[in-house]
């Protein structure tokens, strides 16, 4: 954004402090943020902390159940089918997981919503072309796409991201377009249009901020979906290649032990669910905080619940 807030005296506390205050009031979102910070921490320092124990194979500890403390504290969550600490693997796998899922969600979000804005705003042939492309993407079997990319470009994180991103573009595209069609008729958009605002400005300054919350909600839900798709690709040998691994790959690997060692697939699955849930809680919170019409829900909660809790 090109505009900065003018240095005019504010009559209220800074936005940042306010948000922190509101975050504290929504305990769920607060815990979610803490969890996400933990995830970020793991992504940054996981391999430093756990180092070898995530990759060190120890067949003697194979499928050790959770709380196998005699093997060391690394084994609180148990060990996988090669005797590696699941805790360590979840921590070390965070970086790849976030990279693959994060990049593909962001890529499809950006591309999908950009196309959606264009298709929602313009009524000429570009819209036609975009919608046709969306049709094609939607009906192109994702497995075939994965095969093709793998063959033509080879395996690798970048190509994995490519496959995952391409297949998820239509959902953002269609959602954005549907919302834009509605928002562009609102009075404040019309007002800006009458003043001569360019389509770019209308979309960027007026429509986009209103659509964003919906897109963010979808993106957080997609996050889990992408991790799981990646897991099924790993299962077909199209996913990430060992010794690299992600939570999705861990789930896929644990699948064959569901009957005998549930924990191998369970913990990484839980990590995926918790991350998705935290992202979603934070997104919901953000959605409320940034929306003046809904904001009171947080503000009111604090005082009415605060009294009741004591």
């Amino acid at each position: 954004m090109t505009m900065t807030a003018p240095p005019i005296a504010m009559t209220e506390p800074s936005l940042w402090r306010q948000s922190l205050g509101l975050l504290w009031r929504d305990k769920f979102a607060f815990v979610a943020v803490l969890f996400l910070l933990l995830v970020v921490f793991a992504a940054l320092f996981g391999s430093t902390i756990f180092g070898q124990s995530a990759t060190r194979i120890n067949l003697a500890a194979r499928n050790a159940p959770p709380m196998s403390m005699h093997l060391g504290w690394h084994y609180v969550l148990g060990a996988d089918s090669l005797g590696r600490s699941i805790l360590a693997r979840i921590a070390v796998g965070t970086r790849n997981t976030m990279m693959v899922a994060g990049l593909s969600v962001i890529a499809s979000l950006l591309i999908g919503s950009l196309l959606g804005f264009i298709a929602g705003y313009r009524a000429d042939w570009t819209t036609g072309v975009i919608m046709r492309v969306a049709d094609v993407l939607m009906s192109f079997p994702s497995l075939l796409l994965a095969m093709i990319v793998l063959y033509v470009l080879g395996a690798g994180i970048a190509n994995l991201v490519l496959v995952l991103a391409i297949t998820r573009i239509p959902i953002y595209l269609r959602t954005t377009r549907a919302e834009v069609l509605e928002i562009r008729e609102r009075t404040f958009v019309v007002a800006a249009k009458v003043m001569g605002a360019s389509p770019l400005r209308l979309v960027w300054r007026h429509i986009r901020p209103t659509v964003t919350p919906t897109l963010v909600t979808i993106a957080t839900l997609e996050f889990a979906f992408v991790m799981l798709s990646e897991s099924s690709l790993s299962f077909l040998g199209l996913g990430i290649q060992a010794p690299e691994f992600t939570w999705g790959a861990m789930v896929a690997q644990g699948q064959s032990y569901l009957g005998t060692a549930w924990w191998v697939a369970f913990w990484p699955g839980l990590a995926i669910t918790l991350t998705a849930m935290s992202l979603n809680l934070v997104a919901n919170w953000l959605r409320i905080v940034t929306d003046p019409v809904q904001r009171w829900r947080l503000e009111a909660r604090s005082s009415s619940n605060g009294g009741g809790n004591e």
Partner: protein
Amino acid sequence: QDTSRDIKIVLPSAVDVVEPCHMNSTGYIGLVLKENVVETLLKLDPKTSKPLPNLATEWNQVNPTTWRIKLREGVKFHDGTPFDADAVVTALKRQFVPELACRDKIRSFGSITIQPKAIDKDTVEIVTSEPMPLLPLSLAQTGMTAPSTSMKEAERHPIGTGPYVFTSWDPAQSLVLTRFDGYWGKKPEVAKATYVWRSEPALRASMVAVGEADIALQLAVQDATNKDTDIGYLNADTSRVRIFMDKPPLNDKRVREAMNLAIDRSAFIGTIVSPLSVPASQYMLPSVNGYNPDLKPWPYDPEKAKQLIEEARKDGVPVDTEIELYGSEFMQANLSEMLETLVQYWQEVGLNVKINMVDKIQHSAMRRKPYPADRPPSMVHELHDNTAGDAFYTMIVYYTSDGGLSNISNPELDKLLKEASLATGEKRTKLFQEANRMIQQDIIPDVMLYHMVSYIRVGKRVHYEPNFTTQGQLELSAITFK
């Protein structure tokens, strides 16, 4: 269902083709058809791999390229046509029809052609284009289909002489065989067999557990937990990592030896592979003619391995070069775990190996000639099953210079194998044993791993004892009710 004599068998993948001339080479057709619907002239003894009479009662080699076969009398096809010399000639000729591209023919006869001829009603003479000392073994793989079978396109309703009639087949869901009343042999107990397929091993196991099926094939090791129902057996597959010896550091024998010494084969047993698996020293089961019982699997000696690597390094061998290891999930359960563990062992002795899991099609292309010239130093994990009973079927393809799947080009070995394949009796055995020694000790073209084990779950109602042929042949007549 309890009182009836109907059973249900659950397979790991769909029976999508039922053409009998692919039955030894494709999916689970053989398991369904062989010796149930379609019978062969001879049959292998599962213990010794020696041919036994089946539809033929006698056979002998008239001269190096001519065999004479005496047929069993009083046998009828399911459609009522008599099984006679003309029928056999037609069935044999059918294998060579180009439109059918019979995969069994490619496997058993290669580029050899044959001239079958009816001598009388019960005698057939076969002339081969080259000497074929192993023709009986090949005939043990060749199904005798009824003369009415199409000579132009793949059969959808195979008719044979076996104890079961091919009754119905829905490629999407199930296949049914029912007992043939006019069968020449002993009447089997099972009246009707329905085959279904589920790709998830845990689900197959569950189906038998709850009584929806009587026999489930190919359980995962970890699911084979019930001692009463789950039976493990050596399945004829031997696994190994083949080393392409064309590029450094893999062209150095010390490095290849170090690779073998670096691995603790016993550590895998009971963890990643079944406790019943046997470390292998050669690419065939002990029951195969030519197996060398004196050879032992490589011991686990990481110190020696490190030392060999150091020696090689001193001689300027680039031992740090990244080596690509290819594998395909379709080959074997828990494969990626196995490869990851191998890689770690190699890493410990100072080798740098990277895993590449690839699709079936890439994997096949990787294993066979022509090999791409520009590939990095590579290895490929593969499985091989020699169910035909003679070392020949392994050695020629995998170890001679001309072998389609060979990565060796050793004139001495070529000569030895050539001699062995023409020899017979004791001499043949000895020569192949010597070849096996040479391969393991002198050439080291691979990291031999295990003779693999499969698990089968047999439900409470029935009794069945699997053996190494079960993978490709499950005789319903061997199933009895408790």
